[in-house]
């Protein structure tokens, strides 16, 4: 009797161990386009293990952004099943490149719960990208994902900043971001994302980085690609490259950072503040 119980117990333990190992191994991810970043090839199966370790708590087992922590998090974690991504180098509505996803994983998203996963091995991050692409059938269809070309930056001058300021008024940026860039424009409180979750416009005065990078090129790219899934549109059809650079230079003055644009602006502004028309409703901004 005692021996039999021992055998049953041993079998039970072995079965439990097998189940545990299977659980640790995970399911088979769906097929997706091949993933390549900097010569490294992504492996979705390896990415699945890393996803379980690092990502599943927020993005959920199904990749739908409904992880156990999602209820506590604002803004909500990305829903990979929708395959809508904020930070891209591709035109609005298009899927991002593998490099875009890789940089998003590495950089994280400022003012959100998504940390920079920079300490992870590069290969692990590429594997994660490969696995993320298994959550939506959109990734299975072939199609070129051509990055936007970024022209050389125009010189940073007071005139460029002033032109950017005028564009900030003309393009109604202030309606969401506020006249001082604090993300408190008249429309700010009513904005929602593509899943009807409330969303706040970016507050230029608090962040040290932008959601999709920290360089002027990153900011230029945001204008031209838009931030898919949010009310931030693409201005690719409305702004010429030189105008986009002007807008970049002006927005840099709203940050509390010692950027060249801010230094130039702060040196110029005290003597000319009265000459500037205020930003906001019914103002020309000129």
């Amino acid at each position, binding site marked *: 009797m005692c021996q039999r119980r021992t055998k049953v117990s041993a079998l039970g333990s072995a079965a439990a161990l097998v189940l*545990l*190992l299977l*659980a*640790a*191994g995970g399911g088979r991810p769906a097929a997706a386009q091949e993933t390549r970043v900097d010569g*490294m090839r992504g492996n979705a199966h*390896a990415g699945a*293990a890393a996803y*379980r*370790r*690092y990502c*599943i*708590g*927020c993005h959920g087992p199904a990749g739908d952004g409904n992880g*156990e*922590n999602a209820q*506590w*998090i604002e803004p909500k974690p990305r829903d990979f099943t929708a395959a809508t991504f904020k930070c891209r180098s591709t035109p609005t509505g298009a899927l991002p490149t593998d490099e875009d996803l890789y940089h998003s994983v590495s950089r*994280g*998203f*400022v*003012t*959100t*719960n*998504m*940390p*920079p*996963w*920079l*300490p*992870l*091995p*590069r*290969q*692990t991050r590429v*594997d994660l990208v490969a696995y993320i692409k298994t959550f939506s059938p959109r990734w299975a269809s072939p199609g070129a994902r051509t990055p936007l070309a970024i022209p050389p930056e125009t010189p940073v001058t007071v005139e460029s900043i002033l032109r950017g300021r005028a564009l900030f008024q003309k393009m109604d940026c202030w309606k969401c971001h506020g006249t001082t860039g604090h993300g408190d424009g008249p429309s700010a409180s009513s904005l929602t994302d593509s899943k009807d979750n409330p969303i706040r416009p970016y507050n230029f005065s*608090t*962040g*040290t*980085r932008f959601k999709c990078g920290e360089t002027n090129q990153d900011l230029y790219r945001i204008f031209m690609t838009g931030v898919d899934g949010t009310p931030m549109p693409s201005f690719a059809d409305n702004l010429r490259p030189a105008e986009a650079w002007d807008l970049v230079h002006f927005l840099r003055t709203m940050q509390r950072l010692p950027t060249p644009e801010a230094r130039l602006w702060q040196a110029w502004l005290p003597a000319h503040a009265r000459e500037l028309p205020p930003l906001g409703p019914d103002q020309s901004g000129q």
Partner: protein
Amino acid sequence: MLDRPFQHPHRRLGPRALGLGLGLALAAAPVAPAAGAPAPLSGGRPDYASYIRSRPNTVVVYDGRVWVRHAHSAIPAFARKYGLACSACHTAWPELNAFGQRFKDNGYQLGNDRDSPIWQAPAYWPIAVRTTPQWRLERTTHQPIDLVPGDTAGGVAEGTVTQSGFDISGADLLLLGTLYRNITFGFVPTIDADGTVGIEAAFVRLDNLLKSSWANLKLGKFELDNLLSEKRIVTLSGNGGLYQSYHFVPIGDATTFGLGDNQIGAELMGHSANSYSRYSLAVLTNTSGEPGLTASGAYDGMLTLSQAVDAGRLGIERLGVFGYVGQRPTTFTTAGGEPVPGTGTNHKRFYRIGAVGDFFLGNLEFLPFYVHASDDKYLATGTPVGAPLPTGAQSPIWNGALLETHFYVGTQLLLIQRSEIVRMARQALPDTPKSLGNVDAFTFGVRGYPIMFSRAGLAATAEVAFSKTVGGVPLSGDGVGLPPLAPDTDVWSTSVLVAFDFAF
């Protein structure tokens, strides 16, 4: 075997009392027998009090209980704050992975411009608690046992002592977080199972000074920047819950220091953006972490350097080196014949230098460690400067090495082994057997993590650990054991532990 509980004498003193007492004992007079096992009293009984004085570090380790050293381990308060599962920062908690190391190096900040508590809900409180209910067994060979129970004059004989039963650890209260952006704090009160309360850590850290990750200044009581952290050790048993090499001092040596013990001082630390490159430089009071103005005007120093490389699917491979140079007084100013704390003079030096690695082969992790150490002959023989050294006294030298291996079966099951040796290269006294104090230690364990989310952590752990010390009682977090009657005896100590280790 025994008709009364086998009570370890070290339990009778608290760590602070011991720390002060040791200093005073050292100052007041020349200490203990220079080498070997405790001086025998009549009837062959070891003089335990003398033994305690002669092995101060051992006493601190013994009396401090292994559980105290957990402090600063896995901190679910961070998981709650950032909504990340334990596995994000830990290979298997409490051990850090590369991401967790970077998070810690950055002052427990993710760097998402939401690290300051002003961004948290007012109800958020940066506190976590860790404790470990358990069943355990401790067995030690070659213990001097009264021939007639209760009769101290009737002589002793060596025997094996076995103790087992359900038990509890103490509890660690882990309060760590940010006071503001780039201002980090840590406060870790500990409660031993017997109710003794202590402060394991208390510090403030100024992060990213001059907007550089290469300049972070920490002030207070904190863990040394050990790449192989004893605070994050994954084995918990009496013998397995510590690194022998971190606390070893030759038998008869009066030096109070343990690499694994939190120290009081200031640390300048820096790291690259991904924390692959790291350095730290610390200046520490020479009290081995004991608070109060008992330092003697001399300081210890520690330097660590480490570099990691990205090895693709193998993982992150890291190699580091460290050096610690300390000074301890051998004499004190006295008042009424008693030493005045903090007035030590005639300092003598000791050092610990070594290398440590953290290497991955996929799910297999190797943690090699090596230390080369020496204490000054005055410290090693407990001789105040000015008093005659024992004939032929010299500074002892020893080497310690360990290899710990982890196999991660997914994120929720960990298999562990550790093999460790400490070898005396030179004894303080020439007539001391060369092998006296040598240590062999082996630990095997398994830890399962049935739950893995961002609110709390539970680990079920089972472990067996063996330690052998030649001529002395093995270092053990629990302190079961006494020195053998003969200095050339191999004393084996065995620990078995089955426990729930949880933090919330």
